[in-house]
């Protein structure tokens, strides 16, 4: 990693900051982006159900970090980034509930390269489609109730209580089914054979 020195010319997006601290802060934020952006986007995507909005909120969070008054090292730990982003996500969900249409108020320009969607190339699309097919196949290897519970939760946006009523099982079983579906797909994607993945699931705590 080392050898990265604050570059006096590297002001760029960090020019909101104050005096000589800005380049360092820009580097810190950039490091956070580099190391944690994927997780942050996943977290926000889970919250907002929209990858695009997740990216917008993430960008807003980075801008907030860059604009912090009295920033110290502790400001640039990941937890802080996530807290800011989490709060922004809550704001957005609240506003979504009261306004029928939500206009982005943040930044047309892209703060970090790769933060926003660019049109995916055909190869990436093909890989993604293949991955979706793979997951579909894995899910079909599972007992029907496990797959149904998972798909209701994931694609039909049903809450766990409703799924439990629909399937005539307890909330806890619904939770376990969803967990098993996710873990099983992961194990299969990691290269475990079906029988081995099933055996592994049985060793787990959720049965």
């Amino acid at each position, binding site marked *: 990693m080392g050898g990265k020195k604050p570059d006096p010319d590297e002001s760029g997006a960090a020019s909101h900051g104050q005096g000589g601290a800005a380049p360092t802060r820009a580097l810190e934020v950039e490091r956070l982006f580099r190391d944690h952006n994927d*997780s942050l986007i996943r977290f926000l995507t889970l919250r907002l159900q929209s990858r695009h909005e997740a990216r917008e909120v993430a960008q807003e969070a980075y801008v907030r970090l860059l604009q912090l008054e009295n920033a110290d090292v502790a400001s640039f730990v990941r937890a802080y980034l996530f807290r800011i982003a989490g709060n922004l996500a809550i704001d957005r969900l609240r506003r979504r509930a009261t306004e029928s249409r939500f206009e982005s108020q943040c930044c047309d320009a892209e703060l970090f390269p790769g933060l926003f969607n660019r049109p995916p190339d055909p190869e990436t699309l093909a890989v993604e489609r293949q991955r*979706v097919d793979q997951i579909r196949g894995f899910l079909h290897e599972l007992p*029907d109730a496990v797959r*149904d519970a998972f798909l209701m*939760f*994931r*694609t039909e946006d049903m809450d766990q209580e409703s799924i439990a009523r629909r399937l005539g099982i307890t909330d806890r079983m619904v939770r376990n089914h969803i967990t098993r579906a996710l873990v099983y797909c992961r194990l299969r994607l990691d290269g475990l054979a*079906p*029988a081995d993945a099933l055996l592994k699931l049985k060793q787990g705590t959720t049965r």
Partner: protein
Amino acid sequence: MIVPWGRRDARLQRLEQASLWVQRIRTSGQDERILEAWLEWCQSDPLNQQAFDDIAAIWETSGQLSAEPRPAGVVTRTMYRRRALVASLAGLGLAGIAATWWKLRPAPDEVLTSEFSSPVGVNSVKTLADGSVLELGAGTRVTVALGRHERRVDLHEGELFVAVHHDTSRPFSVDAGRLEVLATGTAFNVLRTAERTTVTVAEGSVAAFHEGRADAAPNVRLQTGQQLVYSQASHTVAVRQADPRNAIAWRSGTLNFQNEPLSEVITTINRYAARKTVIEDPGVQELSFTGTARTDQIDGWLRALPHAFPVAIVELADGRRLIRPQPHALSD
């Protein structure tokens, strides 16, 4: 990468916890305490963070399954099938009261039936609601009916390995046309072609019932390592010793054949090949083949065939391949 067992179990736990976090964030992620606790969990160990990312990636990809119709599980009321009932009683040595039992049979069972099939060239696995595991060979089609009193799989075509979840109150049967295999908790393989059905027991024992000739014994009990071959044409049954590992090697991509007519071999080969192969000549159909074929190297196997037999492979205009007698060899 080889991960020691201890580590792998820890990984399993992390994946489970990560899955629960995904669910919590989805359902109550606006709760700051949840966010706090989640971040704490992630930060306490980089492997936790990794596990979360790994599960979140699955979550994201599966979001694109939205247009997926859920597989049709149809609840139907079906009558007990007489054969299965009589079979289970006879299997217990109670053939004498089987008929009485039939008259006093309980109300029709409520059964959930579902159809499963695997495409040509691809094996697949299905865990049933009762815990039994079906492994389908390529190009295989089954109907599964799970009732409170009986579990039944109809094997329409192809090959099937079953690890039956032990449940004495619900006999488990595989029906392959005129042959029925009955088990409670065991593992066995059934291969069905047009000509015959082969049952191989890998673990435990099964009872096989067939609609054979009137003078034949109605059922055969098979133990581990025994194989039954039922001929559709002559309605005859033969039982022999066979290494179950050979019969189920298809699960790891190897097809094993032991003194099989070439026509039977090709029926199985065709389930794994995009292009079909046909044999018209009866002499070629009856050639006896012993050996193996890799399911991912069917083309190479076919090319090698003329070295082992006096045959030639002809490419047909419709894309199929014909195995025909090798003219020179026959004229010798």
